[in-house]
C-alpha cells in the first residue's frame, strides 16, 4: 500500500515536471513551430480522411433525405421557378448597372478576398486554412454561396468553424426578402431568426440574408424560413431557418 502511494507520488511529480517543462517551452515559443509543422504535414491525410468519412456517410444521408423526397422536389420546383424570375430581373439590373458604371468610368470593384478551403473535421467542424492564409476569427464560411458558419479558433494551418446552429454567442444581423429584420442565432440544434417584432409579417419560404456587420458582408444567403414561432405570451416572434446546404455534405468551402 505504502509502496503504491510512493509510486503514485513519484509519477505525479514526473508529470508535473513534464507539464512545467512543456509550459516553459510554450512560453519560450519552442512548441509553436513543432505544432505548426505537424498541422501542415497532417493536412493532406485529414482532407483524405474527411472525404472518406463523407463518402461513408453518404448512404445514411441519402436514406434520411429520401423520407421527404417528394415534398423536397416540390419545394425545389417552386424555388427553381422563383429563381428563374429573379435571374431575369437581376440580368436587367446588371445591365443597367454596367451602363451606369460605364458612364461614371468607375471600373474598380471592391472585392474581398475569398479563400477556398477543404473540410478536415466533421466532429469539431474545421477547415484547412488558418493564420498562414490570412484567416481571422469571425470571418464568414460559405458553402454554395450560403453562409453556414463563422470561423472561431484559428491556428497556423486550420480553423474551427462555428456552425450557425451552434452559434449561440455571436449574433448575425439579418433580414427577410420582405424587409423584416432580426438576429440570427443558433440554439445548438436549429438556426433561429429571433428578435423579430410581434407585428412583423414572416412568411414560410422567404429567404433570409445578412444585413452586414463587421467581417460579415451584406446580402449573404443564410436560408429560408421553415417555420414561424409566434407564442401569444412572447413579446417577439421567432422563425426557424432551414439551410439547403450543409457543412457535412460539401467538401469545399469558401472563407470570406
Amino acid at each position, binding site marked *: 500500500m505504502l509502496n*503504491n502511494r510512493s*509510486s*503514485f507520488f513519484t*509519477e*505525479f511529480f*514526473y*508529470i*508535473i515536471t*513534464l*507539464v512545467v517543462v*512543456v*509550459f516553459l*517551452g*510554450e512560453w519560450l515559443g519552442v*512548441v509553436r513551430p*513543432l*505544432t*505548426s509543422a*505537424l*498541422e501542415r504535414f*497532417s493536412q493532406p*491525410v*485529414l482532407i483524405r*480522411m*474527411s472525404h472518406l*468519412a463523407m463518402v461513408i456517410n453518404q448512404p445514411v444521408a441519402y436514406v434520411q433525405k429520401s423520407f421527404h423526397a417528394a415534398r423536397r422536389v416540390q419545394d425545389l420546383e417552386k424555388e427553381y421557378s422563383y429563381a428563374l424570375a429573379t435571374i431575369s430581373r437581376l440580368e436587367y439590373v446588371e445591365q443597367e448597372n454596367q451602363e451606369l458604371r460605364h458612364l461614371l468610368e468607375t471600373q474598380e470593384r471592391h472585392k474581398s478576398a475569398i479563400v477556398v478551403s477543404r473540410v*478536415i*473535421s*466533421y*466532429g*469539431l467542424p*474545421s477547415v484547412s486554412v488558418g493564420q498562414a492564409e490570412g484567416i481571422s476569427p469571425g470571418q464568414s464560411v460559405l458553402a454554395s454561396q450560403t453562409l453556414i458558419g463563422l470561423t*472561431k*479558433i484559428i*491556428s497556423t494551418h*486550420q480553423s*474551427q468553424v462555428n456552425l450557425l446552429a*451552434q452559434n*449561440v454567442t455571436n449574433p448575425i444581423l439579418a433580414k427577410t426578402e420582405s424587409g423584416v429584420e432580426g438576429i440570427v442565432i443558433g440554439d*445548438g440544434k436549429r438556426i433561429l431568426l429571433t428578435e423579430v417584432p410581434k407585428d412583423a409579417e414572416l412568411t414560410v419560404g422567404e429567404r433570409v440574408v445578412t444585413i452586414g456587420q463587421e467581417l460579415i458582408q451584406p446580402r449573404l444567403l443564410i436560408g429560408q424560413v421553415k417555420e414561424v414561432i409566434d407564442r401569444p405570451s412572447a413579446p417577439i416572434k421567432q422563425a426557424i431557418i432551414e439551410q439547403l446546404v450543409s457543412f457535412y455534405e460539401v467538401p469545399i468551402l469558401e472563407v470570406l
Partner: protein
Amino acid sequence: MIDWGRWLLRVLIVILVVLVERVVGIPMLSILLISLFCSRLNKFWCYGLMLFSGLVIASLFMISLSKVMIILGLSFLWFKHGRGLVASQFVRLVIAGVLGAIAVVILSGALWQWKYLVHVLIVILVSFLGLKRHKFNL
C-alpha cells in the same frame, strides 16, 4: 531494454487513431490507448510516448500542449492508481478515455453534441472486444 519496433508501432497506432478521431471529433480512443500503452512502458519511454502523443493531439485539436499534457497525465494516473476507487481496469480505462475526451472537446471550444455519444459507445465496444482477447481484467 525497450523494444524499439514495438514502441514505434505504438506511436504509429496512436497517430493513426488521433488522425481518425480528429475527423470524428473526440479523441477518446487515443487517450484510452495512450493510458494503456504508457502503463506498460518504463518511465523514460512512457513519458516520451505521452509527450509525442500530446504534441500530435495539441496540434490537431488546436489546444495548448501543456493542457493536453495535464489531461493525458491525469488519465494515466487515474488508470494506473485508481484501483482503490474502481477495481476493474476496463472501467478505469473507459472513464479515463471519456473524461479526457470531454476535457479536450471543451478546451478546444466546441459544444458537447449527443452524436459524440455514438462514438463513445463504439469505442467502449471496440475496446471491450479488443481487451477481452488480451485477457484483460474487465
